[in-house]
């Protein structure tokens, strides 16, 4: 009597770079801080430390990027969180926007 084999289900291999299902669902945004000639450098560093809880070294790195390159992408977040950070940064009068990451 011949043995009947159960079909085997082979899990589909994920290709490199294929987005995870949650990434497909929710678009993400970069929170960008733009340069201006009037906000003081120590003030910008202070605000980054306050809002993101960064240490001085990281906050200064982003502050200098804003100053030297005209902008810095501070974080990449969901729409809701990015919006929250833009509100916080603008409360401190920094020029910040949220831009789609994809």
């Amino acid at each position, binding site marked *: 009597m011949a043995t009947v084999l159960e079909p085997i289900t082979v899990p589909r291999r994920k290709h490199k770079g294929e987005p995870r299902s949650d990434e497909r669902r929710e678009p993400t945004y970069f929170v960008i801080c733009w340069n201006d*000639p009037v906000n003081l450098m120590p003030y910008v560093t202070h605000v980054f430390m306050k809002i993101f809880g960064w240490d001085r070294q990281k906050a200064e790195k982003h502050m200098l990027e804003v100053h030297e390159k005209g902008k810095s992408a501070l974080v990449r977040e969901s729409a809701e969180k990015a919006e929250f950070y833009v509100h916080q940064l603008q409360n401190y009068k920094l020029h910040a926007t949220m831009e789609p990451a994809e």
Partner: protein
Amino acid sequence: MKLAKHTGNRWHYQLTTQEAEHLRLIVGCFPVGPRHAAKISNTDTDPKTLEREKLLNESLAEHRKELQRKAAALVAPNRFKAQKTNQVYQVTSEDRETLLQILNDIRIESWRILGEPEELEIDPHKIPPDQLRYHQLMYVSGYFEQQLLENAEG
């Protein structure tokens, strides 16, 4: 103005009598001019973004009103204590944060009234007389911001 003592939640700054007077005057000027409309995105054209922008502007207007409500108390006479020829100004960490936001709002809005110049080293003689006040406000608020942040972690 310099940081004299920082313990826990309390900050003590030493000011000359003239500095204390200038701080009271400048905080008394808040708010300077109307608040400018803010943009939430430079590139996103999603209709939701327009709704977000509206909410952002409502939230910023409310925040400014809140700062205005707190401004007078921040420079009330009981904040300053005479000490020899100087004045000692005392604030909590929360007050200090509010004061920084007020001073920076004055600085930014004064700069906007001056036409948002790229170069801040402006010859005062070239400024129209009706705008001279904003040039002074921009500088003096910046001076106090720097002193508040100097030698302070956090």
